[in-house]
């Protein structure tokens, strides 16, 4: 029946599809052979039209990624342990439409490619999608049949089948699921062995079907076998047809063989799962290589996939483990609020130690706390600047790679420090020392206000320990070097952004935000600096004016006027002091705040960089895994079983690495996300605090001004 439709190109694929479906419902054999035909179709297509695999692998990804997320989540979460079986059923049902949708997508693609590739494969290709579609009903039939034969077994069956489908859908190494599968089958499957095997074969076909595009080149010569295979399949009973089909494939895909064998004897199931597994691995190794090139879908798909596969042993477990995943921003924010603590650190008494060029500044670091992690409530240590840098080095070594934003210390200033070393008492060096003291204090505050960094033993040691080993190699962080380092990191990040097509829109947007914010802050910093300079200038000019008024006052003959002018000179002197204070307020409040945040943004970018590195590691591992698989495939083809085991071991090893790196990447991503949110909150809080401080200083200076003028007014009026 199918054969005839195959030979005569149908005018209306729609109607034929129904026809075929109908046929298939009646007889599974047809579906099997349909699958064969389909694979043939894809074979010829892909042979003629090389870009096909790429394009065909992309659309399913869309389908896979979105619907399963919903369909699976809900049942998973709701199902309790007792309802595992029924939950599994519902899942299986949920899976079917997804599958259909995916296949429909494939249809389109294939017919598209057909149009391009020419007339020859028309018949094949047209039938192929139809048959493909028909496969779904077939599967559900299997389940139904199984249910008719043995209720107990079907329930169990449906679950594993579901798992298998899931695997297909997610194209994910389903380790947990795969291991789980044999036990399920063992448990309730003495009678249901056969339905199970058919069922699995159905899946196998799916896999092959998907696999075709990958192995198109190698399978190409196989095209001629189709009719033979089909007739065989027609004649054979379900199991036989399956094995026939399997045989057919085994010629170039040995992996299928163990599957068949395994399906027949439940003892061998473990090897079967391995086989299954590797098949799929190929599939999605290919898929991921392509998919990973773009889009959030891949990432999301992976994440969704990772969830169901890991907790597969029990559905209730999966329900519970799926919880942490949707841990959203709100939860993170809640966490934020918890980290209030009682820790007060001050950096005081900058003191020059030693003489000449070996001199250095030592600071008193006093801590006041009620936290139990410290030995006492109050303690003081002396630290030199390089100790602060050393602390940063240690912290960034440990935490930066995990995606934490490690607050950067103030830059080393060779010029400023040399002045301090050489000069005795000079206002600019005094200002430098004060500026650095304040910067160090802010730095320590930032470190300890970070909940994770506070727990670090090095931080505690820094605050508590009397003598600290001399920090070395902090020279690298000095001034320009530090900036250069940040710039380098920035360059690297921007380069990598080009390579890494961001898998999460959030990160992409944030990174852009950070970049533009950096620009803005730099601009603001320049503005504030000019403001500060104007204020300083103003205070100088005011001082000069005060001086000239004082001279006027002393030369003035009219005593009342002379007195008033002298008073005015004093007022102007005081105003000069006000301007000077305001200049330093402007500087310490805004310029330093902005400078701090420019540095911090560098650290934020560095943590984005760390995430990117983790991603890179993961991708490299995946590429490596893909290579290993290709090697394995070649070995299979070359029929060298001696080396095959080694290749398989390597694949297992790399699979472990891939999943490890992926987990790492997920972890780093989550940390970065949390850190950036924390950083933003902290930033808002910081700015608000500083603005209030600034306003208070402005207000105070205005009130001083009022006092001065009020005092002067009667003097002016007293001029006779």
């Amino acid at each position, binding site marked *: 029946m199918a054969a005839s439709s195959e030979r005569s190109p149908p005018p209306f694929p729609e109607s034929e599809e129904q026809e075929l479906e109908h046929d298939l419902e009646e007889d599974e054999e047809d579906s099997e052979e349909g699958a064969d035909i389909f694979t043939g179709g894809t074979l010829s297509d892909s042979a003629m039209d090389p870009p096909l695999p790429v394009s065909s692998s992309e659309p399913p990804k869309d389908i896979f990624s979105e619907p399963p997320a919903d369909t699976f989540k809900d049942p998973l979460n709701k199902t309790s342990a007792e309802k595992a079986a029924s939950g599994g059923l519902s899942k299986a049902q949920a899976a079917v439409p997804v599958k259909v949708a995916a296949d429909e997508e494939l249809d389109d693609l294939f017919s598209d490619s057909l149009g391009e590739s020419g007339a020859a494969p028309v018949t094949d290709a047209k039938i192929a999608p139809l048959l493909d579609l028909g496969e779904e009903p077939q599967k559900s039939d299997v389940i139904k049949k199984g249910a008719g034969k043995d209720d107990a077994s079907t329930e169990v069956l449906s679950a594993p089948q579901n798992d298998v489908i899931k695997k297909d859908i997610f194209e994910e190494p389903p380790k947990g699921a795969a291991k789980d599968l044999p036990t399920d089958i063992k448990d309730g499957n003495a009678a249901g062995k056969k339905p199970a095997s058919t069922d699995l074969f159905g899946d196998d076909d799916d896999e092959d079907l998907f696999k075709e595009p990958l192995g198109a080149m190698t399978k190409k010569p196989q095209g001629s076998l189709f009719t033979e295979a089909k007739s065989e399949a027609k004649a054979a009973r379900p199991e036989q047809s399956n094995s026939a089909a399997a045989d057919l494939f085994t010629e170039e895909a040995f992996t299928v063989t163990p599957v068949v064998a395994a399906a027949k004897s439940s003892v061998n199931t473990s090897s079967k799962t391995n086989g299954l597994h590797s098949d799929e691995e190929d599939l999605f190794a290919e898929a991921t290589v392509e998919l990973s090139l773009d889009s959030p879908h891949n990432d999301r798909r992976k994440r969704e996939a990772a969830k169901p596969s890991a907790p597969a042993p029990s559905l209730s477990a999966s329900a519970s483990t799926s919880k942490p995943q949707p841990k959203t921003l709100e939860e993170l924010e809640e966490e934020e609020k918890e980290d209030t603590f009682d820790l007060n650190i001050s950096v005081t008494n900058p003191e020059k130690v030693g003489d000449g060029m070996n001199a250095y500044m030592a600071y008193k670091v006093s801590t006041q706390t009620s936290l139990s992690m410290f030995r006492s409530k109050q303690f003081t240590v002396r630290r030199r600047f390089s100790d602060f840098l050393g602390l940063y080095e240690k912290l960034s070594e440990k935490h930066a790679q995990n995606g934490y934003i490690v607050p950067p210390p103030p830059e080393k200033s060779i010029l400023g420090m040399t002045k301090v070393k050489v000069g005795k008492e000079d206002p600019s060096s005094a200002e430098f020392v004060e500026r650095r003291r304040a910067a160090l204090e802010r730095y320590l505050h930032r470190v300890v206000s970070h909940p994770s960094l506070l727990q670090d033993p090095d931080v505690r040691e820094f605050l508590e320990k009397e003598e600290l080993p001399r920090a070395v190699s902090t020279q690298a962080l000095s001034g320009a070097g530090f900036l250069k380092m940040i710039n380098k990191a920035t360059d690297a990040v921007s380069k990598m952004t080009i390579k890494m097509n961001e898998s999460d829109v959030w990160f992409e947007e944030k990174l852009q935000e950070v970049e533009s914010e950096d620009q803005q802050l730099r601009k603001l910093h320049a503005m504030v600096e000019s403001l500060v300079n104007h204020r300083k200038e103003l205070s100088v000019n005011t001082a000069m004016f005060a001086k000239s008024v004082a001279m006027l006052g002393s030369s003035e003959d009219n005593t009342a006027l002379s007195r008033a002018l002298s008073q005015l000179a004093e007022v102007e002197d005081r105003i000069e002091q006000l301007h000077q204070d305001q200049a330093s307020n402007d500087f310490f409040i805004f310029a330093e705040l902005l400078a701090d945040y420019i540095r911090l943004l560098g650290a934020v970018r560095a943590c984005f960089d760390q995430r990117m590195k983790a991603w890179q590691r993961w991708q490299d591992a995946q590429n490596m895994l893909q290579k290993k698989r290709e090697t394995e495939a070649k070995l299979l083809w070359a029929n060298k079983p001696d080396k095959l085991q080694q290749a398989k071991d390597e694949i297992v090893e790399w699979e472990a690495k891939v999943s490890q790196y992926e987990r790492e990447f997920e972890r780093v991503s989550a940390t970065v996300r949390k850190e950036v949110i924390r950083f933003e909150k902290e930033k808002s809080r910081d700015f608000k605090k500083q603005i209030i401080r600034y306003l208070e200083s402005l207000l105070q200076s205005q009130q001083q001004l009022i006092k001065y003028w009020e005092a002067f007014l009667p003097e002016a*009026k007293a001029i006779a």
Partner: protein
Amino acid sequence: MGSNEDSAQSVNGSSIKITDVTQDGDTLTFAITSQKSSSSAGVCVFRTYEDFEWLQQGLFSQEDVPGLQGVIFPPLPSKPLPSTSLSQAKALKQLGFLALGDEWMIYCKALELYLQQVAAHTTLSKSKALYSFLNSSESPGKQCGKKGILNRLSQAMEEMRKEGHKDVDEFFQSERDSSTNLSALFKLSTEKFLDVVLNKQRLALACGHFSTSLHLCVNQDNPTAVAFSKICLKLSDIIEAVKINYEKVSDNDISTLGLGLDLESRYQEAKREMLFRRTCKLVELETANRNSERAKPNKKAIMEGVQKATQKEFDIISSVAKQEIEHYHRDRVSLLRDFLICWCEKQLSTARESSALLSQHLDACKKFAV
């Protein structure tokens, strides 16, 4: 002089106002209104800077006033340079405070003060030139100009020789010394004050830039960014308030103490000029004395006549000068006092306003939830 007396046409000094100024190319035209003391009817005339120069020249060259050289002429501000954008720096250098302020406001104020002082002067208020300047609908004349400049040049040459001339009168000697000293000091103070004011203006400008840039930091993408944006906007408002405060303060500075210091330093200059004219007369008298002593008997009578006339003239000038100086001292003290009080009050009110505004901002900021 006689005709002025009976007409009782003297203008009420305080009624003279410059109500408007229009700029046509390089020429500024001032609308001047005034009232006569005898009637309430106002007169409005339009005058250019050349007309003011003509008036000043007319005042210098009155013929029938005894001891004119002993008069301290109210100082006329320097010629305005209306092509502002081109020569802002030059205008600032020449005019100082008078170049500041919107639409020549401060310059008009200075001209107004000049006219008021001329009208308030006992001798000068009776001059025909002032009368026609304030009343004639026609522009009084443009013939002078160059003469004044030549005069000044020759004066400058003479000054070099006669500045150090020892005075016969103790009072004038000390006046001359203190005037030279004070004039320099006032000039210096005015310059310094101008620097302060310009600095405040620059600061206001920088605040403006800062406040504008803060607006660019606004980002409405997510809740934290919105919170941060609000903070930025708040800060922008605050900086804007600071900017407005500086603008007000510098305006206060210009319109009160700045103008006062400028006027005072120009008056000091006018006083020095007057004293210099007297010194010139003194030198002339001393020459006449020597001449009459050394003169041969046949010319002795003439020489003595000249000597006596010069002596008489010098005496009149000296007495007028003495009065003028005393008058000037009274005037300038009250003038400076007024400026100082006005300045102080304005600064006080600005500071109060600003601190009220800032405390409002502070309250708003403290309530602001992050």
